[in-house]
């Protein structure tokens, strides 16, 4: 049995995080989960298994998270003109995602301030007291918990998403 990181401590830490994210900072995003079964690839040739241009998403859920905004970067394209991109990091509280049965994956879309970001990287690497109670081994399930899922995404065009009417 470990001395630190018991379920009481975890409960406290989760409450502090909830208060911090929900009441103090309150940065809200809408999360669009990629709806794989309803996404069809029949409108174009999909010879090599590339992504469909007709992705569909579940209805969004509103989440609080910590945002880390990268600067917008402007890229000169000789053929189409100037394009813009922006990296964005979303730090979600995993217990909240667990409550919603939401498992982030690459390709999911997160909307912030009317802009849409497609997730590229999903990192789950922060554990309370360094332990994950889902994999307690001899320590048991009373100690530790995965606290956060950090997602890194990039700004994407709304025209590609079919979430809102772009034009």
């Amino acid at each position: 049995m470990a001395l630190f990181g018991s379920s009481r401590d975890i409960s406290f830490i989760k409450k502090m995080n909830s208060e911090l994210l929900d009441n103090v900072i309150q940065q809200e995003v809408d999360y669009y989960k990629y709806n794989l079964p309803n996404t069809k690839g029949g409108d174009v040739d999909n010879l090599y298994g590339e992504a469909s241009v007709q992705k569909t998403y579940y209805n969004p859920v509103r989440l609080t998270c910590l945002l880390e905004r990268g600067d917008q970067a402007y890229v000169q394209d000789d053929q189409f003109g100037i394009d813009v991109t922006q990296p964005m990091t979303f730090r979600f509280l995993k217990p909240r995602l667990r409550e919603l049965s939401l498992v982030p994956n690459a390709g999911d879309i997160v909307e912030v301030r009317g802009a849409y970001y497609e997730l590229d990287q999903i990192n789950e690497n922060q554990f309370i007291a360094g332990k994950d109670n889902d994999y307690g081994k001899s320590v048991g399930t009373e100690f530790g918990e995965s606290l956060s899922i950090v997602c890194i995404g990039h700004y994407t065009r709304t025209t590609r998403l079919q979430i809102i009417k772009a034009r």
Partner: protein
Amino acid sequence: MNVPIWPGSSSFASLSASYYNIPSSGVRPTAFGYYDSDSVFKVEADKVANWCARRLGYPIMEVELQDINFFTAFEEAVTEFSTQVNMYNAKDYMLTLLGSPTSTNLSGHPIVPNMGRTIDMAKSYGNEVGSGGNVDWKKGYIELAAGTQSYDLDTLWTDVSESGKRIEVKRVYHDFTPAIVRYFDPYVGTGSGTQQLLDSFGWGTYSPAVSFMVMPLYADLLRMQAIELNDTIRKSSYTFELRNNKLNIYPTPSAPLNMWFEYIVVEERNAASIQPTGSVSDISNVPYNRIEFSRIKDIGVQWIYKYTLATAKEMLGLVRGKYTSIPIPGAETTLNGTDLVQQGREDKTTLVTDLKELLQSMTRQGQMEQETAIAAAMQTQLSKVPTYIYIK
């Protein structure tokens, strides 16, 4: 596990009922349950919890405490107040209370001080000089033999009459005949020459016949001093030396006689006078019981509220301070646990210090000093009032 925190309200009554009813369930509302049956405490507990939570930032901020934390802080505050008050009462009246029965609860009862223990303490002084006390002064005597100057009291008296217990001689009756009875002794060398005069009046057989003479008192004193000085200088002085109960007599006795002395048995003096069980012996068993919250009036109640808040603040600080930093998604943050603990303790220290000062000023000594100061100030003030000039 989801450990609940302060939800915004509490119900001491329902918590208390579920615990104290049979069958019992839940937890006791307070740690010790000292005041759980006090109707005023029960009502105030919820209000105090609510007040403390709001003072700690609720509902804008979460307060990571539960109702039982607030109730326990409330109980601690009442107990602390009660202890401080009782402590000063005990301190103020300790001399009076020593030896009194421990069975009577003194809380809320004014004590009328007495001199009992002061006199008890004085008795030990009286023992030494023979003016009272609680150790017997005994009398004994040894038989002086003609020509023998030294006597061992341990052998002659202690071993025989006190079973070998060590004695301490307090007085030896070995002296000249008092000067007053030799006032007219023609052989003392300081005759006044009045004897014949008195005889002619028929008073010569009275002793001391000086009662019938119109002489100043100092004349008698001077004469007696003269007789004693004469004894000392011109005669072999009656005296003795006593070392380790070995007695040397001066002058050497010329005829057998009994010489009396007074003494105490050292063991009796050193024996502690032990009061019976059930008597107040020290601060540990002074029967000042906890003061019920319902008996405490506004001054104390406000102190208790503040102390409850300080304790709750300290508790919240300890909760928030268990981990120096708390992980948040992708980072860490530091809570105000350390600040809360420090503030809570400072508040408590200040409250206790203020209360002690207040109680100190209310001891008998403090009240007397205050009255003295008031009297002095009043005199000073009155001295400035113009005096009416009476002109006849």
